């Protein structure tokens, strides 16, 4: 809402020197968000006067029409002689009244005017357009004023060019502040000054000879006032003051009848509609639209109506979308119209159900000044005053006559009352206001207040937002100033800190970052084409996605089922920016619907849902497991003066899985697997116990090609929820034996395709309790070993908790280990 300060002063006697900034500060303190204060005419300096065009000489030979004019500016130029001015506009004739700035004057934007030679003539000033004066964006050439203004009159004052305009962002609950009346009320409260309420008008009572109206949906329209004005002078135009107020409030002057309804809407907050009486056929009706009905609205669009739309009708059918926009067929014609100007108008001032208006506006994607106000709730009690004000202005400005018929249809309703303990605002705020202050503040906003300890509060008709005790508390607290609230701290019961799961997530993040990975938080939006790029089978469950009804991009309409697309995209972006050695990780939710989730039930909000209802809501949601994933490329360790580095590869990816699991106290078992998008020969399945928790390895070359990734890019992804579930609880401290270690090395020859993990676990199982640790320290292949074979060299460390082992004991344990390995994997002791 744009509020010109000069207009505001009409309702509140603000101190004379009060600036827009001062008023802004006051209004902010009572809770209106005054975003800006616009300084109109800033820097403007006269002489700027009304001029009468005496002569026009068209200058020839220029690319555009140029006029050399003489203009009577009265005595403003101190000589009284006609002023010679060159002008590039053509929308005026001899005798027209125009606005002239004389040499020495300054236009907004620091544009100084001086006498100068142009187009071969001497020009002593300029004839001004609305834009040059900062009045609006009209492109129609220079301003032509109504003829009644005397040449030489000061135009700065006449056109009210210097003003301040407050721009207020009105929150949805304060619809009444979409009017001068509402903002004036808040201003009066903020300054403690009386308000001249523009809605306090003498309004004649309803009678039976007004324009006939039938409201058949009183729930959608509980009030409808119709008034008729006849004999609008066809040449009547809005006076300058009215046009200027509309412009300052951000609206364009159109025609007198339309301007007046807009003006009254801005003043009182009541949207009005003016119908050309000659174009209405029969009584006005208010009802819901019938299926299939159509209406051409004022903006020229043909709209197919919904049975929930509230419409205004005449005998022919809908003539307006109630409270949103009128129909083209009953539009007011202005004086340029060839069909003839409108002489008689019917004025509608109604009150519509906010929800109905909101739905219609949204359904038709049509927001108007009227719908904006009706949606937020207008003052039903102001409707007849607004109609009266419109009638008065049309009579005054258009030379028309008000018919005495007054139609008023009102569905009975009781004023809304709320009971609150007098100290309720105190208890909400946490400070003591006292009953007297509470009552005074509530009365200031327009409430009637009765009672002592328990207050019965009748809220004013313009505040439909005041429905609950806390709404009243807010009124008191905001007017007493949020800035005066004390600062206290509640006494909390003791908390239990972070959950195990939350602590695990932090540890995992630190461990991976400590291992050289950089965390990423990628968007979860994906296109389903990425599944083909990842080489997923047609029936891969990862292809079942949550799809958005309104994605930002049609290319990415679904939610991720794996973290890899986002991570790989980030890797590629980094690569493209010249970062080649990359190790990235992400922790986050993936979305795994079955596709068979039932729709959630529609639950009420006036009670707690039952546990079964809550379960039904949850059943509508996809499974959303938490994953952790890494991707790597380039050097894991760079080459340097210390020697060669080594490239990131499948082993790093698998190790990242172990790093994560270790933080959960879980030892991963690694098995060979084949799973997209990994390289079929370089893919590890990661198990926690018997549960598959994820995969790691080098990506499939085809995937690398399809996604334009660097060669040998490797990745790991695992389900953190599953790993957490496998967590075995607190570490049990080992017994640290003080006895010496006995070391035994063995080299075992096995078939090349036997996984080392199998050999290792067989050795471990066979070695028995004396085995302290076991480490693969070398792999050897070659002729000595034989085709299709490999030799695995292990260092075994044995130690007893209670004694020094003999060489025989250590050898026996080693032999047992080797024989188990032989049994399970066909291993042969090398050299044996």
């Amino acid at each position, binding site marked *: 809402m744009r509020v010109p300060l000069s207009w505001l002063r009409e309702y509140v006697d603000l101190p004379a020197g009060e600036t827009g900034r001062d008023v802004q500060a006051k209004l902010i303190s009572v809770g209106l968000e005054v975003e800006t204060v616009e300084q109109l005419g800033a820097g403007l300096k006269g002489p700027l006067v009304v001029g009468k065009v005496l002569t026009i000489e068209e200058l020839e030979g220029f690319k555009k029409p140029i006029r050399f004019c003489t203009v009577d500016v009265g005595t403003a130029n101190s000589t009284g002689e006609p002023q010679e001015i060159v002008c590039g506009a053509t929308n005026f004739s001899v005798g027209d009244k125009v606005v002239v700035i004389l040499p020495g004057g300054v236009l907004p934007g620091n544009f100084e005017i001086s006498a100068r030679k142009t187009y071969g003539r001497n020009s002593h000033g300029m004839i001004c357009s609305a834009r040059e004066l900062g009045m609006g964006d009209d492109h129609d050439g220079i301003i032509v004023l109504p003829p009644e203004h005397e040449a030489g009159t000061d135009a700065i004052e006449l056109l009210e060019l210097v003003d301040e305009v407050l721009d207020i962002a009105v929150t949805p609950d304060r619809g009444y502040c979409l009017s001068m009346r509402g903002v004036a009320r808040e201003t009066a409260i903020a300054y403690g000054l009386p308000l001249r309420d523009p809605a306090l008008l003498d309004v004649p009572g309803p009678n039976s000879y007004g324009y006939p109206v039938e409201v058949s949906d009183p729930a959608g329209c509980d009030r409808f006032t119709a008034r008729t004005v006849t004999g609008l002078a066809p040449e009547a135009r809005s006076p300058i003051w009215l046009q200027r107020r509309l412009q300052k409030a951000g609206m364009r002057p159109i025609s007198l009848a339309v301007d007046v309804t807009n003006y009254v809407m801005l003043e009182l907050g009541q949207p009005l509609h003016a119908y050309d009486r000659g174009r209405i056929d029969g009584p006005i009706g208010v009802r819901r639209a019938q299926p299939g009905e159509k209406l051409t609205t004022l903006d020229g669009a043909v709209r197919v109506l919904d049975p929930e739309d509230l419409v205004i009708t005449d005998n022919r059918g809908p003539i307006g979308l109630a409270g949103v926009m009128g129909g083209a067929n009953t539009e007011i014609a202005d004086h340029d119209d060839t069909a003839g100007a409108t002489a008689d108008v019917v004025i509608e001032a109604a009150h519509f159900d906010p929800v109905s208006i909101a739905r219609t506006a949204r359904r038709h994607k049509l927001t108007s000044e009227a719908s904006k106000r009706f949606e937020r709730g207008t003052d039903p009690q102001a409707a007849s005053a607004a109609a009266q004000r419109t009638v008065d202005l049309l009579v005054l400005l258009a030379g028309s006559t008000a018919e005495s018929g007054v139609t008023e249809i009102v569905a009975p309703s009781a004023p809304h009352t709320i009971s609150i303990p007098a100290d309720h605002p105190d208890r909400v705020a946490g400070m003591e206001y006292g009953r007297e202050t509470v009552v005074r503040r509530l009365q200031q906003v327009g409430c009637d207040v009765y009672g002592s300890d328990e207050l019965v509060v009748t809220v004013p008709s313009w505040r439909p937002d005041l429905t609950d005790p806390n709404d009243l508390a807010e009124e008191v607290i905001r007017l007493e100033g949020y800035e005066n609230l004390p600062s206290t701290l509640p006494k909390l019961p003791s908390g239990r800190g972070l959950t195990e799961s939350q602590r695990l997530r932090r540890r995992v993040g630190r461990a991976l970052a400590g291992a050289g990975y950089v965390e990423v938080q990628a968007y979860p939006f994906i296109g389903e084409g990425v599944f083909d790029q990842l080489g997923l089978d047609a029936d891969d469950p990862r292809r079942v996605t949550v799809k958005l009804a309104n994605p930002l991009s049609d290319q990415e309409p679904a939610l991720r089922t794996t973290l890899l697309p986002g991570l790989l995209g980030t890797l590629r972006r980094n690569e493209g920016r010249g970062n080649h050695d990359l190790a990235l990780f992400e922790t986050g939710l993936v979305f795994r619907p079955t596709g068979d989730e039932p729709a959630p039930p529609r639950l009420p909000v006036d*009670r707690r849902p039952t546990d079964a209802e809550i379960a039904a809501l949850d059943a509508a*949601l996809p499974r959303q497991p938490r994953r952790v994933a890494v991707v790597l490329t380039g050097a894991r360790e760079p080459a340097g003066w210390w020697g060669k580095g080594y490239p990131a590869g499948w082993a790093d990816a698998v190790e990242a899985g172990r790093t994560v699991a270790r933080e959960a106290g879980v030892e991963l078992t690694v098995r060979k697997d084949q799973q997209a998008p990994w390289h079929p020969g370089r893919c590890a399945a990661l198990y926690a116990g018997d549960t598959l928790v994820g995969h790691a390895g080098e990506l499939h070359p085809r995937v690398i090609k399809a996604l334009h990734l660097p060669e040998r890019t490797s990745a790991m992804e695992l389900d953190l929820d599953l790993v957490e579930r496998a967590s075995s609880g607190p570490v049990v401290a080992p017994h640290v034996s003080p006895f010496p270690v006995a070391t035994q090395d063995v080299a075992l020859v096995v078939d090349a395709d036997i996984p080392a993990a199998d050999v290792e676990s067989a050795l471990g199982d066979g070695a028995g309790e004396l085995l302290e640790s076991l480490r693969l320290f070398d792999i050897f292949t070659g002729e000595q070993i034989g085709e299709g074979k490999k030799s695995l060299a292990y260092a075994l460390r044995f130690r007893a908790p209670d004694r020094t082992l003999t060489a025989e004991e250590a050898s026996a344990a080693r032999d047992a280990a080797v024989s188990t390995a032989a049994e399970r994997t066909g291993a042969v002791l090398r050299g044996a």
Partner: protein
Amino acid sequence: MSAPNKSYDPVEVETLKPEEIERMRDEALAAIASAADVDALREVKVAHAGDRSPLALANREIGALPPHAKAEAGKRVGQARGAVNQALKARQEVLEAERDDRVLVEEAVDVTLPYDRRPEGARHPLTTLSDRLADIFVAMGYEVAEGPEVEAEWFNFDALNIWADHPARTMQDTFFVQGKEGGKDGEESGVVLRTHTSPVQIRSLLDREPPVYVICPGRVYRSDELDATHTPVFTQIELLAIDEGLTMADLKGTLDHMVQSLFGDDITTRLRPNYFPFTEPSAEMDMVCYVCRGESVGNPDRPCRTCSSEGWIELGGCGMVNPRVLIACGVDPQKYSGFAFGFGIERMLMFRHKVEDMRDIVEGDVRFTLPFGMEI
């Protein structure tokens, strides 16, 4: 001196003469003194103090002397050998020290060499900032609550008093999950990407008995295009306190505590009236600009980029929990009241760390993230 021993060999006895022993000793000492390094000294030691050294051989002759001469010769040889050994030991120490000094010089390296051998890693600053904020509240006794990101509308809207026709429920703000295929066109699924972490507040109220003190950090979604100041996916922290007798003053104090913990003891907050369906009264919360402390206001000579010379930085929204929300969660609004606030931490990251473009936070460029390290 008489010579009663018949087997006495005058040649051998010659070696035990005092002059001879003195000579042997002096030769040994000279050799020791002239040994240039530890290796040379080792040879000297063999030659002059070894089993076959002159003094050792002389010592063996003592047994052949008549008893009366044994003691004196023994003493003489012993003293000489003692002197030699002592000299050896002293020389050994000197030479070892010299050798060590030389080796240490030879082993010197350029300690200024870079060692970027282990790759650096880092956590995302949104993660660490979220953790840091959580820690502030956990220290006060709050617990961290979490919930799904794909959420039922009842949790995201209805229970929060955001009724069916509220503007927030339009496609402009909210990502809706597509209804079932085969359902009629545009059929609503009743499921959305959560637009705030408030549904976690609702879940907390349903799960727990009051008093409830939780914070709800997490990812939220609004259908804005990514630009320098907006992102469709962002991170929120919300707080919910439900107890008997909680007030707006408690809300203010909690906010003050938060900004003081992060920005310094003298930073305060201010509340400005606003409107949210889920709180009543509602407020916008600002904090004093921690950079200029408000001194840039009306002071064009010292403009402040952090607060655009406003003196205040907008944080987010807050208010007293609307009793209607409590009713929807089965909490008795006659007995309990509470407060809530929420804000996006991307903005806080931007003004706290002078991030100039939202896209830097979003895009995952390692050059942006690495300097943030492990904690923030």
